[in-house]
């Protein structure tokens, strides 16, 4: 839990840095970290390689905005509706996959297929999602602040703090989850599902729980992303969105708490730090991914904590 103290400097940052670009990069980092944490819960936690989190990301954005429009409710209630939709979808898809005991590669492919189907629905259901034209989101989330009452989040600095607070909340949630019995059962399933079953753990129910929690967290990231950029379109549900989240978790460190955040920070800020012609930048992105997988299998956080522990043991 103490690793969460590493977030404190980010709370202080807006006072030091005036540049809006850095804050924007960090806002995107925080939001994509939430998506990455969502994926990490089901993959780093219960060992199930899912490709559905991008669909949940998109559904989170779409349903939150649509329910805000249709029922005139606040962002948070709209998100509540999105949670319901995502929970139901996750249970249906999860039930299908886990009932048929799809393993690793096949689970990834079936969840990918369902995500693509969701994307095609979003792409062609013009009456509701406005299809390929996407939707312009002009509404903004509102927050109750002591003293000032209901405040609309519009400028960069308020968005910075909203997304940072949300990320901190999700991090605490995922830390608690991993240390609780639920988390312990997740790792039992990840490491040896057959053994876990013989020890009385209902692996079907726990995998379904991990899959659902992961998609709800991803939907939260989708809602924040949609309302911050002000535009939602079917590309939210694309395969590339899933792969980005996976790359962040692996770069940062699978099955660690802070790994997804570190991975998100590096991969979001990287394109803007290196001044290279466009084609080369994409190549650098790919090369980094390869180097991390081959040289640092446990990711940055894995490497760093290994060094730290190594230091303590040696000392």
């Amino acid at each position, binding site marked *: 839990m103490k690793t969460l103290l590493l977030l404190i400097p980010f709370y202080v940052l807006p006072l030091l840095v005036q540049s809006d670009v850095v804050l924007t990069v960090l806002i995107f980092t925080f939001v994509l970290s939430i998506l990455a944490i969502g994926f990490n819960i089901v993959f780093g936690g219960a060992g199930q390689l899912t490709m559905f989190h991008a669909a949940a990301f998109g559904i989170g954005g779409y349903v939150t905005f649509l329910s805000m429009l249709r029922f005139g409710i606040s962002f948070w209630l709209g998100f509540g509706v999105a949670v319901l939709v995502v929970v139901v979808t996750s249970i249906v898809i999860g039930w299908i996959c886990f009932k048929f005991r799809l393993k690793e590669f096949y689970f990834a*492919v079936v969840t990918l297929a369902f995500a693509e189907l969701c994307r095609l629905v979003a792409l062609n259901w013009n009456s509701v999602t406005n299809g390929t034209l996407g939707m312009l989101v002009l509404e903004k989330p509102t927050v109750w602040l002591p003293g000032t009452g209901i405040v609309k989040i519009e400028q960069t600095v308020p968005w910075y703090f909203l997304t940072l607070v949300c990320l901190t909340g999700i991090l605490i949630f995922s830390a608690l989850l991993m240390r609780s019995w639920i988390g312990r059962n997740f790792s039992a399933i990840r490491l040896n599902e057959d053994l876990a079953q013989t020890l009385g753990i209902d692996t079907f129910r726990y995998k379904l729980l991990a899959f659902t929690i992961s998609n709800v967290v991803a939907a939260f990231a989708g809602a924040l992303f949609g309302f911050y950029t002000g535009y939602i379109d079917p590309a939210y549900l694309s*395969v590339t969105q899933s792969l980005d989240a996976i790359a962040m978790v692996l770069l940062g460190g699978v099955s660690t708490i802070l790994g997804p955040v570190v991975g998100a920070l590096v991969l979001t800020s990287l394109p803007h730090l290196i001044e290279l012609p466009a084609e080369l930048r*994409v190549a650098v*992105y790919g090369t980094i*991914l*390869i180097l991390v997988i*081959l040289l640092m299998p446990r990711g940055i956080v894995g490497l760093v904590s290994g060094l730290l522990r190594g230091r303590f043991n040696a000392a």
Partner: protein
Amino acid sequence: MQVVIGQILNGIILGSLYGIIALGVTMTFGITGIVNFALGEFMMIGAYATWYFSDQAMLPFPVAVMLGVVLAAVAGLVADQVLFRFTRNNLVNGLLVSIGLISVMESGALLLFTTTPKSMDAVVAGSLSLGAITLPRMKVVVFLLLVAVIGLTWLGLSRAWLGRATRAYAQNPEAAMLMGVPTKLLQTGVVVYSCALAGFGGGLYASLFSLEPSLGGLFILKGVEAAILAGVGNLLGALAGGVILGVTESVGSLYLPSAFRDAYGLVFLVAILLFRPAGLFGSQR
């Protein structure tokens, strides 16, 4: 009615292209335990090389295709020695290394050829027409070549010593190793061969369709779908899986909105995976 038959034939031809990639996917998965998602990029190498050698360097088409295959095989060898050697039997690492490789190779193509589409003239012009159905001759030629290569590969694997050793290794790696099967050579050989197959598919693709750097991405997904449809590990099934996928898409687009084209393959795939997890022809491995 003729239209449907026309589309079934078209689906079969398109399916053979999916099939050759599926064959590469199946062989790589069977022997090295990973899915080489970057196979589409080796297809792109074959396609661009064939286009360059035949359109720019004015070499005869067969020579251009052969050069494309050689280039793809060499690239496959480099990729295997530098990357895939370290991700044997580790599916997730193999997936992610492939994704990294895809962006590297795509940006290479962008640098060399820009995004301006390249299009070759049909090597064999004209079309066959049987009643109302017309099939471009080039498509038929491509289909025959692909089926021949897939057939030869299947024959090779079931007749030649190396082929039998490969199948033995796929069935039971430990036993094969004990019998002195050179596993390292085998694994590299299979990766290189599947890249060469993809390069060959790419060369033929270039004679039918326009080229752009991102063509690899579309075909690898179809190849993986076809491989799973057939049951990963089943060699001849790869072609059959590709054909079924191609026909489903072609006939599907006739009746349902063609914007949903990719959905038909996906729905079919999910159904197969749920009710016949080993695939249509797969053995319960």
